[in-house]
């Protein structure tokens, strides 16, 4: 190599008690490139970047900037060297304005007074230069998550960052916002900034990165250029084995309708109507996908169907039985399984053991209990069986649910729901936050359940997921079903319908 790269990390090793988080990792960044750091949850991506940002100190290894050895022992030192980081969880003060947040700690001042106008002026200037379109005087709690992320980027740029670390930046964004973020990244790149893009999503890495480094279990497995890289190849590098990105699925052979929703109207907490007359049917042995951007009434729709929210009007029939307005317990007893969208808050009691979590719906009845008397031994025995069957790793029946990784937590939820042999299964965001290997498992399992003859309602923000699993696709927009498509519809067509554009059967 003729010229030293802009930034070079060599032989970085970081040990935590019982874990080798980074094992002699080499990573370099060229001026003006987007270099993606790809790996599953826990592969060591964040550790490596936290070392670069001065939050951790490596046990071994060196960092060179422009060929000069560099010691970074605090975020302050990183910032001084022109390294900025946008964390997955934003560090903004909600009640302060954009400009105030950005200048926090480096306030321009006029004597002893804060010169807010100068601050706003500079923020506006940088914002325009990179096409960020952020209003400096807006309060943080009044702007969208996507905007808040731009504020974080601005914050780094304001402090003179030439190297930007973006930690899982799309995790919190809608597809539209993600698209806009990529535009911003490209304009940053055009201005000569260099970007490290951390992700576990294959598609977006292939879209935005110039080079990709794959981390697996703390080791840098390979660094490769985008050209020639494929999703399948990257998935194999990430997981260490062949991964099926698209599930094999036989054409559906739908039976009788098991779940019927008629003209359902549902209100949210604030009393606003978020579902305005939704009707559809899900038949035995088919997967119906509901596609839509977050916040178009999906959550309320699911809650109404699963007995967690009382609908205003309309009807819900499960196997022909009217379940409208029944509670969660009645729904469970009527043969409805529910994989909830928030497994940590709703799907699991994190402080319960896995055995208790698996018994969460059935503990009232024999064999779990009799006359109010619980048989913990039986809970444990069943859990042992199910944990093995669903390949849950990282703990046994007596482990607390909180100790498991997201993918394994989700397996526990699925094991519980499926083992009750429901005729209807509602799966909301079943793969949110999971990595490739776990997603593969969940998808295969859902198809297997479909083949068992269950009626499956899948709600997801991920178009990929909807397209690869569903037999029929409904698009929800502002609380209405605005279109129905077969599974060979194009992603573009769905995308347009999801944002309120014209659907084939527009309402």
């Amino acid at each position, binding site marked *: 190599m003729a010229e030293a790269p802009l930034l070079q990390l060599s032989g970085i090793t970081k*040990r935590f*008690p019982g*874990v080798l988080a980074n094992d002699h990792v080499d990573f370099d960044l060229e001026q003006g490139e987007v270099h993606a750091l790809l790996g599953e949850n826990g592969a060591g991506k964040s550790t490596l970047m936290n070392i670069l940002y001065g939050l951790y100190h490596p046990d071994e290894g060196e960092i060179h900037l422009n060929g000069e050895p560099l010691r970074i022992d605090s975020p302050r030192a990183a910032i001084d060297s022109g390294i900025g980081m946008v964390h997955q969880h934003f560090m903004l003060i909600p009640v302060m304005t954009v400009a105030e947040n950005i200048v926090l700690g480096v306030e321009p001042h006029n004597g002893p007074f804060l010169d807010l106008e100068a601050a706003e002026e500079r923020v506006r200037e940088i914002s325009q230069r990179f096409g960020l379109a952020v209003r400096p005087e807006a309060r943080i709690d009044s702007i969208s998550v996507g905007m808040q992320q731009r504020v974080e980027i601005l914050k780094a740029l304001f402090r003179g960052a030439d190297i930007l670390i973006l930690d899982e930046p799309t995790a919190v964004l809608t597809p539209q916002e993600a698209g806009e973020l990529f535009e911003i990244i490209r304009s940053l790149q055009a201005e000569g900034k260099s970007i490290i893009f951390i992700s576990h999503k294959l598609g977006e890495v292939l879209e935005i990165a110039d080079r990709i480094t794959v981390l697996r279990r703390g080791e840098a497995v390979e660094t490769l250029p985008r050209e020639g890289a494929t999703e399948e190849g990257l998935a194999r590098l990430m997981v260490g084995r062949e991964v099926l990105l698209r599930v094999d699925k036989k054409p559906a052979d739908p039976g009788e309708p098991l779940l019927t929703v008629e003209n359902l109207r549902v209100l949210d907490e604030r009393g606003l109507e978020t579902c305005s007359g939704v009707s559809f049917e899900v038949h035995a042995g088919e997967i119906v996908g509901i596609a839509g951007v977050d916040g178009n009434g999906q959550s309320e729709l699911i809650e109404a169907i*699963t007995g967690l929210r009382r609908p205003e009007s309309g009807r819900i029939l499960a196997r022909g039985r009217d379940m409208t307005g029944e509670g969660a*317990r009645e729904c469970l007893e009527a043969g409805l399984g529910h994989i909830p969208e928030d497994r940590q808050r709703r799907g699991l009691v994190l402080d319960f053991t896995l055995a208790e979590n698996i018994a969460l719906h059935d503990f009232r009845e024999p064999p779990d209990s009799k006359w109010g008397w619980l048989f913990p031994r039986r809970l444990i025995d069943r859990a042992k069986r199910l944990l093995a069957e669903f390949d849950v790793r990282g703990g046994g029946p007596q482990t607390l649910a909180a100790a498991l990784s997201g993918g394994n937590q989700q397996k526990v939820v699925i094991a519980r729901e499926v083992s009750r042999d429901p005729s209807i299964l509602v799966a909301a965001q079943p793969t949110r936050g999971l990595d490739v*290997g776990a997603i593969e498992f969940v998808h295969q399992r859902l198809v297997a359940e479909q083949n068992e003859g269950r009626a499956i309602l899948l709600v997801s923000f991920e178009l990929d997921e909807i397209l690869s699993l569903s037999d029929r696709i409904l698009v929800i927009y502002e609380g209405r079903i605005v279109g129905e498509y077969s599974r060979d519809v194009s992603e573009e067509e769905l995308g347009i319908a999801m944002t309120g554009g014209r659907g084939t059967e527009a309402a």
Partner: protein
Amino acid sequence: MAYEPGTSATKGVTEWFSSRIGGILVPVAATALAFLIGGLVVAITGNNPVTAYKAIFAGTGLNWFFPWVTGETREAAANDLQQTLILMAPLILTGLAVAFAFRCGLFNIGGQGQYWVGFSAALFVGTHLEGLPRPLHVFLAIAASILAGAVWGGIAGILKATVGAHEVITTIMLNWIAIFGGTYLYEIGGPLQGPQESIPRSNEVFESAELWAIWGSLPALHAGIFIALFALVVYAVILNRTTLGFEIRAVGFSPEAARYSGISVAKNYFLALAIAGAFAGLAGSVDLLGFKFSVDVGDYGTNFIAFTGIAVALLGRTRAVGILFAALLFAALEVGTSTRQLDPEVFEPALAVDLATMIQALVIFFVGAELLILYIWQARKLLRRGSVGEPEATP
């Protein structure tokens, strides 16, 4: 797969650490630290902390368990131990009253009120129904106290379940209703005042309603300690072996997940506070039928047993075994520092009572600061490795 074995192993270790070691370490460290600081204060007041603590320990009667303590000292120790155990019984029960609600995610500050209504209910039964066989009379008086306590706690429970009134506010208000209600009943000219017109005191319960004395006479240790121990077992069994306990714990850990599983959050709020109240009410009858036998209006201003019960529940980390030891500690501390136990030459009794209060407060403070203690402990381990920080968390 979806997780890195190393990462989840670390998480497992942390989990194990905080649930096992942390579970014992924190209360023990908190107690030790409290005694240490208490000792410093003793030293500042110009006394020898070691002699003071020795005297306090002797005053608790716990030295009775040492086989080499003989003769007169042993007799004195027996007397002291009886007092410690008498006090321990209601401390266990009021501790359970706080702990049980806590397991459902509720903070029951109403133990004192529940204690007093239980006390009054038992007093009413104990001063009526003359001529009943003793076991029946005792049983009825105790049952009345449990019921009354449950009603008192249940009122706060219903308010929480139906209109969402915060249990901290309502239980405090119910405390005052119980205190002023009791004052009204037994004050001079009150409807249930006892035989002496000039003394604001209730009647004494009939002998047939008294709990059996089992050891000593000053006053004697009564059967209440067995009732308290039995209640501890009931507590553990309800929580761990019944569907009711399963629901209560589920609601306590995650109301949202409980609701999703078809568990009624409102119903469990009500039940948890009612059962908590039952424990506190039982504490009232144990005290009444065990050694008080009547109540003086003045007692309403000096008895804070259920507030010490909060300390017991916190130090015991709401576990049955923890509550047992915490109740023993606080009972011993109170008896050991009471004025009649201490030799003024060694340590001024008035100071000793303050010292007991101070140590109690410090224990609570440090238990509350458990995160801090755990943090220091872990930071120490990490520092030894020359680094501070945690591995990336798997979301």
